[in-house]
């Protein structure tokens, strides 16, 4: 026992405080260990078994589920789709939300109302808006094809063509999330002292130059945070894909035409709860877990090196 612990035990007042400390944090620690800690270890355990969802007679097979995973073309396609999706969302959502934040960073009539409209999709239920987007993206009667048709574009089979499935998913997700990142960027911009811009004005720097040399570097903590949170959330994509593409394939599995919208979590869910391969699905859960751990590691090390903190 450390010297500090001993000194706590020595005084009755400290002992009471320690007791209450454990009572106060106890329920939450217990909850986290039972509902997150144990399942994490249990997931590793399940993944080494051939185990059906009914749970009868699991058979230990070592790493065979992992071997199967990396040789399963459907899983590899789901991984590829997920990476394309994550890349697509990052590519559009982050710059777009930064642009919106910069444009909103000035006085304008009804500015607050407009901001709220951009934020509206963020708070809504994913299941409900995914249903709405099924209808918005409908090939013949959807409003999106009507609107782009208005500008002379051809009708696009968003949900029925493997080529368009991923763009449809990305458009919907950017629509859902852009307001979230925008509000964070606006807060980041407000934290930059106007002093810097005044100094740059005196030196005659152009607005573009000011953006490159002042805004971007001083905004980098916010940008990094947004980039990595968007990435983490995007890897977990599930409800949108499942709902937008349910029924579009004969199996109603939510994987999209020709599996074009099959993502890691959708495939995991179908394996576990549709086809009953619990052991195999658990291995996929471990795979996703490892990806998220790697991103977090990158986040921690980048925060130390790259980011300029405003002193």
């Amino acid at each position, binding site marked *: 026992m450390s010297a500090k612990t001993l000194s*706590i035990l020595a005084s009755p007042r400290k002992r009471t*405080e*320690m007791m*209450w*400390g454990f009572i*106060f*944090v106890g*329920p*939450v*620690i217990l*909850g*986290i260990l*039972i*509902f*997150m800690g144990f*399942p*994490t270890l249990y*997931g590793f355990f*399940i993944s080494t078994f051939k185990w059906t*969802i009914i*749970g009868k007679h699991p058979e230990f097979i070592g790493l065979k589920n992992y071997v199967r995973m990396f040789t399963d073309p459907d899983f590899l396609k789901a991984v590829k789709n997920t990476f394309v999706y994550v890349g697509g969302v990052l590519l559009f959502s982050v710059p777009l939300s930064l642009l919106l934040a910069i444009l909103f960073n000035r006085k*304008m009539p009804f500015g607050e109302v*407009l901001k709220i409209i*951009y934020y*509206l*999709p963020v*708070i*809504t*239920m*994913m*299941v*409900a*808006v995914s*249903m*709405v987007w*099924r*209808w*918005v993206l409908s090939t013949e*009667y959807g*409003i999106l094809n*009507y609107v782009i048709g208005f500008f002379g574009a051809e009708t696009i089979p968003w949900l029925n063509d493997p080529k368009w499935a991923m763009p449809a998913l990305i458009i919907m997700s950017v*629509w859902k999330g852009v307001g*979230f990142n925008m*509000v964070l960027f606006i*807060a*980041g911009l407000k934290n930059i002292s106007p002093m810097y811009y005044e100094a740059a004005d005196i030196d005659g720097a152009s607005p573009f130059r000011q953006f490159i040399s002042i805004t971007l570097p001083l905004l980098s903590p916010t940008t990094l945070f*947004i980039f990595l949170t968007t990435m*983490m959330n995007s890897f*977990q994509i599930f*409800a949108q894909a*499942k709902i937008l593409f*349910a*029924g579009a394939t004969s199996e*109603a599995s939510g994987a999209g035409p020709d599996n074009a919208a099959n993502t890691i979590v959708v495939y*995991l869910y179908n394996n576990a709860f549709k086809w009953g391969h*619990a052991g195999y699905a*658990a291995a996929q*859960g471990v795979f996703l*877990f490892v990806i*998220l751990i790697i991103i977090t590691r990158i986040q921690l090390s980048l925060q130390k090196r790259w980011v300029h903190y405003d002193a």
Partner: protein
Amino acid sequence: MTHNLMNFKKIKISSVIIYLFLIAGALFMIMPFLWMISSSLKDVESIFIFPPQWIPEKVNLSNYTELFTSSYYNFGLYYFNTMIVVIFRVTGMFIFCSMAAYGFARLDFPFKNLLFMIVLATMMLPIQTLMVPLYFEMRFFGWINTFKALIVPHSLGAFGGAFSIFLLRQYFMALPKDLENAAEIDGCSIPRTFFSVMLPQVKTAYAALAIFTFQGAWNDYVWPLIVINSPKKYVISLGISLFLSDKAALTNWPLLMASSVLGLIPILVVFLFFQKYFMQNLVMSGLK
């Protein structure tokens, strides 16, 4: 003078262009909602009229009544179930997350930092990666198709409670130590100090977190999908996804859109009333 005037004009024009761009974007953002409401008020024939009508010729509320009264859908029940889950989760957050936050902020006990690191680590562990082991665990507990499964883990800080604990801890740490010292001199015990002196100090954080928890509980889909399969215990998100299992219903767009409206209305109302708290949460989360 002329130079100034030119400059003024240039700024004006660019501002107008920016403004128009933002309005066009806002129209795109709000379009799906308007389209949803408009479609939910149509009947099965007028929904396929082309070009689309934004305002239905005759407003038809039968889709809504069907969702509440038909034998297949029971949205009244789903609302009731969802409200139970929401109320208990918010209460649970109030009690357990704030206790833990206070413990981590102000009390001294062994392994405090290690335990706090464990709480923070749960932030990067989404439910999606744990679907299978959690399902087995819930079945072992006998919690499948129970409200216990929907309420207990979240109330005890699992699945996202870490964020609330983190924020409340920041608030408690910012309070002056004198408050507790004064309470101690008056002879208050630690729990008494916490409940009657410290808790009232963090009311604003509570409001924001209550809304945050409400939003998470109302919109929750993945967790109910894993632990609930009896329609008697369906929450609103599962009620809406009922349409997915029925191919004919999946093309009954007016009914589908009415169900989406029902899923969105409560959260939109809460948002419009407490809009400032929503944004406040978000800004706080970016400051970590």
